[in-house]
Every structure is written in structure tokens, then in C-alpha cells.
């Protein structure tokens, strides 16, 4: 009797084991039929308030919920895609812009979207008490910086005005030909004034308005559910002005931090799109499942900051030697293996007509010569410096390879110091490092998003590097309206930067991730900002 039971159980188990894969209709298959996109979103968003967040994770969700004056273009991020504004004009030197807000633009509670809502929103993000991380994105607007820093208390003096319900005038500090691209950043997004004021003051940083039951947006989707660390669900917004274009019924964002877990979830059929792919899995996908893996160029640079206050790194010849000894091809081919490009300059390629000066090269002989001239022949007498990295497998791997290259080519011994994220940030901002791993991702499609950080005393410089000519070139570029002349100034500035580098450039980023065949209308975009209203599932 008992034996029979056991046998029965075993049989059932074996049947289940064999049958399960055969009858498998995965979650992704079912969701595709229901037009629900299952999206691997990396990590849990800090918040969904466009004025206080600072990450790409948040942006993936917020851009589905809120639409700015200019939205994300589905195929080319250098082009403007009309959002809340259906038309606009500017004066001759592009320093004064007027936007017309389209008829039928509505908030998800039915209120019309007005020009005054934008004035309120810009006022909000610039309020000193809100302490918004990205308020400086608005500094190109007249009076914005002074207002944010408390030097100006009357917001009417700031360069934004609602001419009437539908016309918004924005006056900028100087000529800004890239303004439309800058406007796609979420710091320029509107929020619903009545909702903000219902849950607090205009400048209350902590507010319950982003909870699903309170959230009011104007984007193609609205917030349905937020299960912290589990899933965020958005659903179609019927009041969106272009609701007929929206293909999806909803998106579920899964904050899976571990790459391996995410890849397993994708393979199990629980996700349509992942955030990343584990390094070791890339060759396999490229060989056997080419259509599932995407390698998109991405507007970012991976580099090592060099602390120019350190005795040996003060010498430009040493900094140059460190750059020349790097075999960047070998790093991207053998280590990162995600289609990254060796960073021969600092600003990544692909920003319109800007041509990055590509001055970095691999020349170990010259490197050795320069190092010897600097007083360290064959690395003799070179101080024992350390590369500071934040704890991560991939940073460690790259650092070990670079450590080896410098040792082999220059004969210098460099250590690796591992710090956890917050300590690492602290060491970096306070310049408690010799050499530190860094990355920089562009906010919009213009080289200034990469170049202003190296001006003297800029909060993101963090190397002690300072060059008067460089500063003045950058300053001049802000007064220049003509694109060709502006880019010429910036190229000249970058040439100075690369000849006297406060860093060692390594590679230009790519985004490598997985996408199932269900997803259609998904294009490779330099800023990785996808307009979800065009995305479809089949």
C-alpha cells in the first residue's frame, strides 16, 4: 500500500517534470497577448517625483507617466519630438523661446495642462528648500541660478512666463541651440500643482503625492501599483492626448539588481527586456541567440580620474604615459566584450556634428620615454599608488587588467583599493585617492554635458585639474549661437583637455541587454530614453 503511494507520487513527479517544458506558455507569452510589457529595470527607484530623483531607473518609469514640453523621439534622440508643446519658436540667437501647449493636453485627473503648470513646476524644482539634485539643469534659464541659490527671492524675475493658458515664454541666459534636447531631461517635466499642494507645500521634498493612489501625471501611462522592491505597474492613460497611438496596455517594472538573476528571469520567460547581461553570457548569446541580444551605443565614458595634486601625477608627462600604456583595444575586446569602443577622446561620438578629437593612442615606447623623462626610468622610484574602485566584479576585472598593463609596460606597481559605494563617493569628492574609477553619462545630446565638468572648481571635476585657457573656451562657447563656431570652440577645449589629461580614458559605453522577439518598435538610442507610447508587443 505504502509502496504504491510512493510509486504513484514518483510517477506524478516524473510526468510533471517531463510535461512542464512541453506545455510551457511563459509569463512573457501571456503578457504579450495582454500587451503588458515586462521590463527589467535594474534597481528600485528612489521616488517617482521628477524633481527630486537622479537616476536612469527612475527615468524609465517617470517618462511613461509624465510628458514634458518635448518628448523622446522614437528613433533619433537629436531630433525633437513634440510633447506637451505642439509648436515653438525662438529668437535669432536662440535665447528666447515660446512654446505653445497643444489643445487637448490633459492631466490624468481630467484637468487641462496649462502654461502656468510649467511655471509652477520650474518654480518648484528651483525652490531652495526642495534641494533638487538636478536643479542646475535649469541654470541655463535666466535668473534660475540666483533663485535656486537664494540670491533672488522673487520668482517673477526668473525667465519663465505664462503668456496665457497655452503659451509659455522661456528666456535663457544666453544662446542655447541645444535647448530642445535639454528640455527632454526630466528636471524640466511638469507636475500637477493642485496635487502637489494637496500633499504639502510647493517645496516639500517628502510628500505622499507619488503614491499610486495620489499620483497625477500627463503621460501615456498612469501609475497603478507600487510594490516596493517587487514590481511597479503602470497602465494605459485614457486621457492622454495621443492615447490612440499608445500600443501597450501597461508596463511592469521589475527592480532586479543581480545580473545573473535577471538573465535567469529572462530565460524563464518572466521578462521581455532586461537591464543588463552578465559578461560571461555575452559571447554565448552573440553566437547562438543573436536576435535576443542588443548592443546599443550609449552616451557615456568610462575613465580613471588622476589626482593631479599627487607628487608624481602632477607631472603631465606621467599622466600622458599612463594613457599611452593602455591597450584600450585589448580591454574592450578581451575584457568588457560588450561592443564598447576604445575611448580615444573624452566626449563620446555621435552627438550631431561635434567631432571628438581622438588624441589618445597606444604607444608603450613613447610612454616609457615620457616616464623616464619625468624621472621614473622603468618605473623606478614611482610612488606606490592605488586605483580606487567601488566594489563590483566588472570594475575589479578592468582594474586588474590595467594594473597589469602599467606594470608590464611601465614597470610601475599600482595597487587596487576596493571601497563600498558611499565610502568610495566620499573618497572621490574629497579627493582622498590617487587614481579612481569613474564614469560619466550624458544628460542630453550636446558635448557641453561632458565638458563643463572639467572647468576649474566644478563640483564634478574632483581631480584638482585647472586650466585657464580651457575655462575661457568653455565660457566663450556659452555665448556663441552659431553651431559650427560653438563646436569649434568646444573641440579646441577638448584638445587642451586631452593633451594635458586629468584622467586616463578607457572606453565609451554601450548598453548590452536582452530583448525578446515579442517587443517591436524598439530602437537603439544614444541616451537610452525610449518613448513607451510607440513600443508594441506581438
Amino acid at each position, binding site marked *: 500500500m505504502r509502496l504504491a503511494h510512493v510509486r504513484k507520487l514518483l510517477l506524478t513527479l516524473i510526468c510533471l517534470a517531463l510535461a512542464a517544458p512541453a506545455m510551457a506558455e511563459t509569463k512573457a507569452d501571456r503578457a504579450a497577448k495582454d500587451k503588458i510589457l515586462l521590463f527589467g529595470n535594474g534597481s528600485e527607484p528612489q521616488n517617482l517625483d521628477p524633481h527630486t530623483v537622479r537616476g536612469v531607473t527612475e527615468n524609465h518609469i517617470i517618462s511613461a507617466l509624465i510628458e514634458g514640453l518635448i518628448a523622446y523621439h522614437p528613433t533619433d534622440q537629436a531630433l525633437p519630438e513634440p510633447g506637451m508643446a505642439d509648436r515653438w519658436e525662438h529668437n535669432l540667437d536662440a535665447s528666447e523661446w515660446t512654446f505653445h501647449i497643444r489643445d487637448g493636453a490633459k492631466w490624468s485627473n481630467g484637468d487641462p495642462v496649462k502654461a502656468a503648470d510649467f511655471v509652477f513646476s520650474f518654480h518648484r524644482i528651483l525652490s531652495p528648500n526642495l534641494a533638487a539634485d538636478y536643479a542646475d539643469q535649469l541654470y541655463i534659464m535666466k535668473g534660475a541660478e540666483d533663485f535656486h541659490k537664494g540670491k533672488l527671492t522673487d520668482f517673477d524675475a526668473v525667465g519663465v512666463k505664462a503668456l496665457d493658458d497655452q503659451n509659455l515664454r522661456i528666456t535663457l541666459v544666453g544662446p542655447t541651440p541645444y535647448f530642445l534636447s535639454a528640455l527632454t531631461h526630466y528636471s524640466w517635466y511638469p507636475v500637477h500643482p493642485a496635487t502637489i499642494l494637496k500633499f504639502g507645500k510647493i517645496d516639500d521634498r517628502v510628500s505622499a503625492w507619488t503614491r499610486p493612489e495620489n499620483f497625477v501625471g500627463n503621460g501615456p501611462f498612469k501609475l497603478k501599483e507600487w510594490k516596493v522592491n517587487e514590481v511597479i505597474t503602470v497602465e494605459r492613460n485614457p486621457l492622454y492626448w495621443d492615447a490612440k497611438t499608445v500600443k501597450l496596455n501597461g508596463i511592469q517594472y521589475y527592480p532586479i539588481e543581480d545580473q*545573473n538573476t535577471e538573465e535567469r528571469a529572462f530565460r524563464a520567460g518572466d521578462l521581455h527586456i532586461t537591464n543588463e547581461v*552578465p*559578461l*560571461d*553570457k555575452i559571447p*554565448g548569446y552573440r553566437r547562438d541567440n543573436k536576435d535576443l541580444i542588443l548592443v546599443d551605443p550609449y552616451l557615456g565614458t568610462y575613465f580613471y580620474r588622476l589626482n593631479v595634486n599627487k607628487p608624481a601625477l602632477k607631472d603631465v608627462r606621467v599622466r600622458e604615459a599612463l594613457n599611452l600604456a593602455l591597450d584600450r583595444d*585589448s580591454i574592450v575586446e*578581451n*575584457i568588457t566584450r560588450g561592443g564598447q569602443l576604445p575611448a580615444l577622446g573624452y566626449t563620446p561620438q555621435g552627438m550631431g556634428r561635434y567631432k571628438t578629437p581622438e588624441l589618445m593612442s*597606444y*604607444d*608603450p*615606447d613613447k610612454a*616609457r620615454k615620457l616616464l623616464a623623462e619625468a624621472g621614473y626610468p622603468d618605473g623606478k622610484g614611482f610612488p606606490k599608488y592605488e586605483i580606487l574602485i567601488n*566594489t563590483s*566584479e566588472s570594475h*575589479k*576585472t578592468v*582594474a*586588474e*587588467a590595467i*594594473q*597589469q598593463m602599467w606594470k*608590464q*609596460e611601465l614597470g610601475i606597481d599600482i*595597487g*587596487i*583599493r*576596493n*571601497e*563600498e559605494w558611499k*565610502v568610495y563617493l566620499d573618497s572621490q569628492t574629497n579627493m582622498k585617492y590617487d587614481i579612481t574609477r569613474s564614469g560619466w553619462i550624458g544628460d542630453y545630446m550636446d558635448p557641453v554635458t561632458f565638458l563643463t565638468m572639467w572647468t576649474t572648481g566644478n563640483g564634478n571635476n574632483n581631480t584638482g585639474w585647472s586650466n585657464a585657457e580651457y575655462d575661457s573656451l568653455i565660457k566663450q562657447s556659452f555665448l556663441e549661437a552659431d553651431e559650427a563656431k560653438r563646436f569649434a570652440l568646444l573641440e579646441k577645449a577638448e584638445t587642451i583637455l586631452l593633451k594635458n589629461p586629468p584622467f586616463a580614458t578607457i572606453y565609451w559605453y554601450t548598453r548590452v541587454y536582452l530583448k525578446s522577439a515579442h517587443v517591436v518598435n524598439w530602437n537603439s538610442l544614444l541616451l537610452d530614453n525610449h518613448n513607451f507610447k510607440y513600443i508594441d508587443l506581438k
Partner: protein
Amino acid sequence: MTAASEIEHGTSLWRDAWHRLARNKLAVLGLVNFILITLFCLLGPSFVPYKFDEQARTLQSSRPGELIFARDLTRNKSREPRTDYIPLSKMIDESAFVSLSRQEVAEKVEKLKRRETVQAGRYTYSRSTRHHVLGTDALGRDLLVRLMYGGRISIGVGLAATAVSILIGVLYGAISGYLGGNVDTAMMRIVDILYTIPFTIFVILLMVFLPRSIWLLFLAIGAVEWLTMARIVRGEVTALKHREFIEAAISLGLGRLHIIFRHLIPNVMGSVIVYSTLTVPNVMLLEAVLSFLGLGVQPPMSSWGVLIDDGAKTLETTPWLLLFPAALFSLTLFSLNFLGDGLRDALDPRASKD
């Protein structure tokens, strides 16, 4: 009783234990095995022609024992005339071979296998003398030699931290359990408190305030691991002290220290040793987590914990990077375990009645 006779008495007790241990085949096997592994890690690197941090970047994740070919890089501007190394499994992806048919590639590979040189594209290929018995890791470093170096760290840390934890834990637990009453309560509350200090914070603080070193690593681990040891010992001592032989010792007027060291501690050694054999793997694994957090083993140095952690991340694509470290790690722990059990039986006087 003279001092000399006491020593003699002591040695004979241990000699008995040793005899009992020697009769336990598994325990002896464990001991021998452990010594062999230790020797392997200590002496092994001198028999391997690669260094633990020597990278051959084009040779990443080559399979165990795979044939390796050399590619001459004459165009390279590097200091020495450099050669790149390509494993057999990657030859098909070689850019110089892309235009060739499968058949032609196979022919060339056959030639190479016969130690002939082959010209293709701009490169000259030949069979390399390199041989990585256990394959290479993601940076093309020899796994075998990294395993040996890793073993030095892991065994060292495991033993040292366990010794620290035994030293503190046994003394603390025995004293607490024997004295009982308020002292016991106070001492156990201290253990409770230490238990509740979050380990990560403790470690991060240590990492920041003190120079990073391997010594600090096992001091930190030992400082955490003794707590459970203390609780176990205290539990046993509390039970033991009401037993007749302790009560007899007390009524004979023997000193507290004498009772603790001569009568209580020897009687709890069985549990201590068994728990120690559980502590060693714990310490080794904890060490991996710590290295991952940035404290302890710094790259390019390795330890078994680090190798297993790395291997687990790529277990589907390069299983050997997990398999070999995990196997050696397990073998070590099995050996320690058999040894521990054997010691326990040998040290437990009651067991000898069987």
C-alpha cells in the same frame, strides 16, 4: 603530588587519545589529506611556471588542459616581441581564419597540433608550450596556481580565526557557565548584545578606521565567531557542573580555575572540536563575503572563497571555475570534519568504554 608526575599524567592521557585517533582510519585519512592539501598550496606554486597574477588576456576562460596556440604579434609596438595565446576552442573565431572554410581551418589546426607553424593573414601561428591543467579564469590567469595561493589564504584564515574563536569562546563560556548567577547573566547579556551588532557595519568601520590587512580579517572573523562557541560551551558547562564528579571536586576544595581548566574544559572539548570543524568552513565563506565587501583579500590576490564566489557567477558558461575551487574546498572541509570527529571520539573518555 610532584610537578613531574603531573606532566607525565597529562602526556599519557594525550598519548591514549593519540592511540585512539590513530586507530580511526577515517580520521587518519582526514589528517593526511589535510596535510597534503596544505603542502600542495604551500609548495605547489614553485612547480607551476605561471604566477598567480600573470594575465594572458586573449586566453580568458580557456578550458582545463586545452591545447594552446601562440600568435606572433610582430606589428605590436610593445617592449618585448609579444605573443598572444589562443585556446583551441577559440581558433575558429580568429579573424585571420574567418575567410577560410571549416575544412581549411581544421587542416590548419591539425598542422598546428603536429607542432608545425602556420601562416594566416598577418600572423604566424605555432603550438605553444603553455599548458593550463585546470584552465584559466576570465583574465587568462592560471586557475591551478590561483587555487594554490587561494588555499594559503583560506587555510590560514580559517585556522587562525577558528583558533581565536576557540580561545575566547571556550574561556568565556566556561567561566560564565561555571560561575553562574549574576555573573553568568551579565556575561551572556554581553554575548547577546554583541550578536545584535550588525556585522556589515562593524566590518565597514573596521575597514575604514584600520589599515586593511589579512590579520585584521581573521581577527574580525574570530571576534564574531567566538560568540556561538561561548554559548555552546556555557550551555554544556551549566549542565556539567551539577554532575557528581564536579560536585566531588568542589567538595574536595579544589580551586575554581583548577576545576574549570582541569575538569570542565576537557569535558566540553568534544563539542568544541565538533563546532570548530563547523567554524572553519564558516570562516572560509565569511572571508569570501568580506573580500567581496572590500575588506581582506585585495585583488589580484585570491582565496578559495573569492574563487568560489567568482565561479558561482559564471557557473553556466565556465563551470570549471566553480568546480575545482569548490571541490578542493569541500575536500579540505571533509578532511577537517573526519579529523574533528576522530578527535572527538579520541578525546571523549566515555567513548573509550565502547
